[in-house]
């Protein structure tokens, strides 16, 4: 096209659009992010006697990464995130009970159940901010009320909970949880380094502007929503498999959402390692203090949230970046963060 040929002559050297990109993580760092947490849990399982605690830590790591996908990369904060976890737990339970599938396949049903719920709830993405948060919370409550309804006892076992003792296998479900950690970390790495992840960050910045960059905003948001739901559904399914007996109020509990959100925020959303570190550290503290002395844990938790909001809105990742930038300044460097956690991507 002559017009373009003329336009080409207007410019000089390289196309700015294909220039160097800040924020991509290197291949070794990507591999480390995917392998190290999973390897850590495998090693911990050898030396640490409480396997259930490790599984729960992995479940929360995955949930925190799921929050990272939907909040860190698109800005939607779902207070009803536990709904997908519960849908996953029941997806696995019902497929095992009625279709007699092996639990490994049940995890696939868990993912499908959560994704179906997410598709049904996708109109919520039309809402913003606090309205979205509240609507997602209400949707989860509605789902809980349906599942735990005594009238549906014949199907869901109602409020009396389900028993999956026939497929109970702590080692197999532990391995499934490790595999899921690998998947969750890989998703975070993908979002940090892919065209899709960059698109989500663009949308989070300004949806109208992103549309005029040619982005299909609605489809991208929906894709992030479904990925986030799939992670929570798989986590719920593996939780159900590992514990084998649970009640609906345990898997639709709002505190699951709150934990996942706080873990992700503590570590730093929009990053690869932040939510994982947040889950490991805070869930570790919870197990050390929270179970024996729950009142102290609540106190620590409350103080932590206040401190986070006031002084560390970027979480641990933000702190690391700040320290590295400060160090570079003192050294007389460029002042640019060289943190493996990457530059800040969102306002969370």
């Amino acid at each position, binding site marked *: *096209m*002559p*017009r*373009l040929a*003329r*336009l*080409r*002559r*207007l*410019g*000089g*050297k*390289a*196309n*700015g*659009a*294909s*220039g*160097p*990109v*800040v*924020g991509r993580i290197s291949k070794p760092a990507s591999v480390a992010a995917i392998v190290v947490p999973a390897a850590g849990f495998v090693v911990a399982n050898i030396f640490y006697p409480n396997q259930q605690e490790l599984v729960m830590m992995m479940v929360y790591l995955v949930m925190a990464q799921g929050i990272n996908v939907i909040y860190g990369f698109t800005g939607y904060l779902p207070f009803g995130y536990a709904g997908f976890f519960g849908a996953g737990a029941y997806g696995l339970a019902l497929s095992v009970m009625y279709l007699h599938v092996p639990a490994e396949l049940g995890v696939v049903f868990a993912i499908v159940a959560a994704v179906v719920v997410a598709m049904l709830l996708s109109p919520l993405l039309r809402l913003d901010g606090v309205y979205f948060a509240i609507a997602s919370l209400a949707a989860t409550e509605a789902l809980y009320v349906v599942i735990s309804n005594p009238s549906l006892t014949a199907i869901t076992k109602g409020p009396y909970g389900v028993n999956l003792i026939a497929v109970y296998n702590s080692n197999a479900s532990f391995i499934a949880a490790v595999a899921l950690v690998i998947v969750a970390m890989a998703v975070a790495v993908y979002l940090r380094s892919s*065209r899709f992840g*960059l*698109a989500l*960050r*663009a949308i*989070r*910045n*300004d949806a*109208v*502007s*992103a*549309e*005029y*960059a*040619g*982005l*299909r*905003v609605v489809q991208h948001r929906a894709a992030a929503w479904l990925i986030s739901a799939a992670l929570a559904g798989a986590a719920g399914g593996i939780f159900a498999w590992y514990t084998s007996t649970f009640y609906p109020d345990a898997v639709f509990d709002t505190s699951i959402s709150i934990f996942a959100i706080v873990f992700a925020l503590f570590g730093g959303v929009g990053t690869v390692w932040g939510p994982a570190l947040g889950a490991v550290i805070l869930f570790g503290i919870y197990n050390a203090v929270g179970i024996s002395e729950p009142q102290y844990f609540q106190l620590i938790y409350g103080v932590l949230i206040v401190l986070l909001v006031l002084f560390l809105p970027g979480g641990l990742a933000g702190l690391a970046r700040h320290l590295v930038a400060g160090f570079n300044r003192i050294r007389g460097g460029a002042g*640019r963060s060289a943190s493996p956690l990457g*530059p*800040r*991507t*969102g*306002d969370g």
Partner: protein
Amino acid sequence: MANPILAISDLAKSFGGFIALDGVSLELQEGEVVGLVGPNGSGKTTLINVVSGLYAPSRGTVTLGGRPLHGGPPHRVVRSGMNRTFQVPKSLGTLTVGENLRVASAHGAQRRTLEGDPLELVGLAGLERRFANSLNASQQKRLDLARALVTAPQVLLVDELGAGLSPAELDDAAGVLRKLAAAGIALLVVEHLMGFLAKVTSRVLVLNAGQQIFQGSLEEAVRDPQVVQVFLGG
């Protein structure tokens, strides 16, 4: 005369009972520049918003290269070959300048590709690694323009590029617009600064209260009694 690249016909937009735009028609040829002027609230930005697909029109049609656009959505308008800038710059703030362009290049530019350096063209060369929210307002406006250019538009709607720029920056901006027109891009330029507009075009469309009151040369516009009354009062 060749077929117009952009044809706007009897375009109207109302918000509830308020008629923001009423029966505007305009044709733009390849490489042609038309200034869109009018007092505050006359419907200039609304016209850009409707033409670029942000709002669906209440009446009328927009055709680009002979194909109707049916009022958006914006990403489809962009992929069809039309883009815009914003009166208040809308940079993707927590992305770097390079990433701002990379998003547009990856999603907005379909078959056509732009091989020139849009950053150099708009005077932002060397700032690829800066975060967009660390740029000043003038630089952010230019980044908006560069992002739009990466999508290789045939038609570009420029919303008050000149506002807030220094005299030297205004000269640069006018030079950039002239280069784009020379490269064949049709431009619809919303502007309050007549001196700036005179440097890029001699043809204007004047709006008042959503209605087109004049279309013709800038020279004639300043002598048109209705235009004079709208701008200077009775």
